[in-house]
């Protein structure tokens, strides 16, 4: 007989089959991921919470018979039945099987299963058509760097802390009264002097002393293993700083649900990216019409307001929040703005001033996305090919490389907005 311990075998033997299955039910999975995105808060986009996928699209048909016809069953009875007794058939066919093979092969019950965090993120990023390189930088675990963390009695030779080791060694030698070279030389000189003087007594005494010193020196090592100290290192996540992400959105009537959904995906992706780089990412939601206010996430995406559009109001609120709570020396500032490009033309001067003088100089990145309609139709203003806000920002962009602008009409384009940012961070990391 042989006993084999298979527990340590590589896990996930069925992973390949699982991926094949996921491909089969791609439609269902995509729908589930979209639902989850709609339900999740921006900051939870990569949380460990389960994504459940309900599957009903994978049939494995086979020939099977219907319950029709004459069937005879012999079954275990309750002991109270007698010849000629009748039992009502369950309505609707199924229910209690009465010995019938419960619909073998026939349209299997739909079932739910759970996506892992990686699978979910993959689908999310797939839809955004994130390039491979950027994907790894989003998916990888936090970067870490070794940092000094005190001393240790174990370690590798290159981490030997020489000064501390020698200090311990010296202290031990003094405490155990290991003779130093000077003492030894003095006694040797005494031996030599006694030999020269021919003083037998003194010579014997000095030689005995010398032998004793030598013995003591040999017994007490110069450096003992207990003296040795190593520098200890710990891996600490870097950079250990905080970031704040301002989400600005125009919520006036012209923003449709589709546009808001695009904006949400864009905010999520930015958050995901920032979450990898910073220990903590604060998110501030500011919505505006002609007036702006800081709101919570639900209000931000759900509620709708009517009114004109003054972008500068949102910028004002953003600056006020930043000054009050997020000093620029402690926080990395990121701004993500989504809008359909509408703005009052009288507001242009103030927007330009705020951006140029106050905002762009302090933020690390200002991403502006202009969301279009579902079929890619942008709300054009009579005769103008670009929108008011686009024009305004466009005039600023040559002097400020931290300003990125994109037009969005489907989710695959979201990535493009952040492309420059990823490219930059990739270069910085390398």
């Amino acid at each position, binding site marked *: 007989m042989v006993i084999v311990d298979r527990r340590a075998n590589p896990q996930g033997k069925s992973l390949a089959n699982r991926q094949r*299955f996921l491909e089969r039910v791609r439609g269902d999975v995509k729908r589930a991921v979209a639902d989850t995105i709609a339900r999740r808060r921006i900051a939870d986009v990569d949380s460990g919470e389960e994504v459940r996928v309900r599957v009903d699209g994978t049939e494995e048909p086979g020939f099977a018979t*219907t319950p029709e016809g004459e069937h005879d069953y*012999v079954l275990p009875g309750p002991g109270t*039945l007698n*010849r000629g007794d009748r039992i009502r058939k369950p309505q609707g066919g199924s229910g209690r099987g*009465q*010995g*019938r*093979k419960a619909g073998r092969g026939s349209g299997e019950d739909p079932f739910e299963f759970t996506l892992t965090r990686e699978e979910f993120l993959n689908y999310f990023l797939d839809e955004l058509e994130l390039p491979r390189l950027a994907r790894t930088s989003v998916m990888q675990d936090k970067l870490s760097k070794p940092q000094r963390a005190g001393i240790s009695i174990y370690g590798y030779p290159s981490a030997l802390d020489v000064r501390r080791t020698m200090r311990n060694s010296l202290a031990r030698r003094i405490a155990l009264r290991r003779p130093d070279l000077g003492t030894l030389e003095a006694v040797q000189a005494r031996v030599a002097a006694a030999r020269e003087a021919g003083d037998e007594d003194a010579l014997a005494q000095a030689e005995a002393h010398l032998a004793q010193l030598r013995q003591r020196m040999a017994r007490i090592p110069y450096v003992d293993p207990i003296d040795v100290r190593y520098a200890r290192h710990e891996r600490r996540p870097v950079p250990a700083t905080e970031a704040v992400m301002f989400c600005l959105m125009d919520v006036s009537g012209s923003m449709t649900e589709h546009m808001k959904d695009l904006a949400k995906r864009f905010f999520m992706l930015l958050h995901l990216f920032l979450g990898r780089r910073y220990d903590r990412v604060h998110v501030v939601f500011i919505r505006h019409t002609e007036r702006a206010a800081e709101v919570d996430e639900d209000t931000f995406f759900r509620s709708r307001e009517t009114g004109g559009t003054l972008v500068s109001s949102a910028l004002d609120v953003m600056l006020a929040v930043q000054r009050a709570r997020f000093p620029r020396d402690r926080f990395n500032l990121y701004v993500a703005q989504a809008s359909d490009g509408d703005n009052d033309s009288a507001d242009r001067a103030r927007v330009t001033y705020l951006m140029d003088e106050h905002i762009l100089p302090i933020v690390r990145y200002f991403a502006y996305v202009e969301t279009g309609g579902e079929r890619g139709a942008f709300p054009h203003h009579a005769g103008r090919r670009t929108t008011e806000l686009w024009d305004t920002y466009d005039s600023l962009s040559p002097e400020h490389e931290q300003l990125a602008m994109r037009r969005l009409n489907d989710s695959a384009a979201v990535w493009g907005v952040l492309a420059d940012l990823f490219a930059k961070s990739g270069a910085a990391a390398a």
Partner: protein
Amino acid sequence: MALLFDGAEWDFQTLDAIHRACEDIAVGEFGLQVYPNQIEVITSEQMLDAYSSNGLPLMYSHWSFGKRFARDEALYRQGYQGLAYEIVINSSPCISYIMEENTATLQTLVIAHACFGHNHFFRNNYLFRQWTDAEAILGYLAFAKAYVAECEERQGRAAVERILDAAHALRPQGIHRYPKRRWRLAEEAERRRVRHEHAEVNYDPLMRTVPGFRIGQAAPEARQQLESEARARLRLPEENLLYFCEKHSPRLAGWERELIRIVRVLAQYFYPQAQTKVANEGCATFCHYEIMTRLHETGQISDGALLEFLHSHSSVILQPDLLDERFAGWNPYALGFAIMRDLARVAREPDEEDRAWFPAFAGNGDPWGVLRDVWANYRDEGLIRQFLGPKVMRSFRMVHLADRTADPDYCINDIHDEEGYRRIASLLADQYEPATLAPLIEVADVDLFGSRTLKLVHQSHRGARLDGDLAKKTLQHMQVLWGYRVCLQEHDADTGRVLTEYASA
């Protein structure tokens, strides 16, 4: 004797000691004959893995296994479904998977059940001897896995999946029910290699340019002659649809035929298991019960362990009656165990009734001899027809329930009394008739020189009809394999009248 273990903990020495103690009893006292055992300790995740590939340790890749895994895992995590304590594979050496979570008592139970009960059955039952090749199955699985992977690499995954999906749909109709010769799995890989070499050696592009004989130009009589000759070569009717496609499909490439063959071989491998559920589980359950009792009698397991064992044992053989909420058909463990116990009792201490029912062996004093004979020579249908005694029928209070489409009620036609015993035993045996495992569908005809339409026939017995929706979808798969249109007629088996006709699109 000293206790084999104390408490729930176990290690590999314990398993070894348990196996030796069980072996002494099973082989030494009861005379079981087993393949060498290989016990593999696995985790629950690996158990789920094994579930998804029908318990086989190796399997080619296919999405349907991933689906089964996802579903089983979801059910398991939500607590709707427990995991089996063990899975045992009909191979030599006989591989038993046991879960690491099991207590020492459960491991003992599992070893007695799988390593001796099932193992003895696999080795001795005539169906397994006839149909399966225990020495070669592991090697064959490795070949199948590598071959499918190679095809995917060469032909692309989509092309491979197309064939496998279709073949999977026809799996129940891909079985030879009557053995022609024993399948030598070890020769499969060799057979493929020889065929391939033959094709390479005989490749001759020039021969293709020789103008062929056009059947359309032949005289009507000659044509008829040719057609009947070609049809005779097909040996119709053929009930093994996968075999038919593999051999005669005009469209398939060599590797596609090979894939069909792999699916067919594996379906055939499981065919005996489907026919011997009651006998197999009855054998294993009876063996573990007897072995555990002996271990306790000889002082090798404690009273506590015996009680723990009895608790699991009694939940394994629970059989709710048909009015019970939990009822879901017969529990093969319960039915099998009851029959085996009854037979052992009849051999040891029969009463008048038993002597009348089982004159051949009642009171012969050799229960293990009787049981070994039953396990070696019967499948479920025969076991029930010949060895279901009146005591067992009474203990389950068996009734005969008639289900007629026209009748809104089920009707009790027979119960377990003098008048009903014979009929009940025979009807229950009919229920385990292999023909009822899957609808019987045959290839009846092929339009050889015209549209090449394949004609299938389902004989409808006693009003049993095919599910039309599924039939159409399955025909679609059949068309993939055949390459041309496939139609299916349902015939009333008594009158020969055509009831319905389905066709692939």
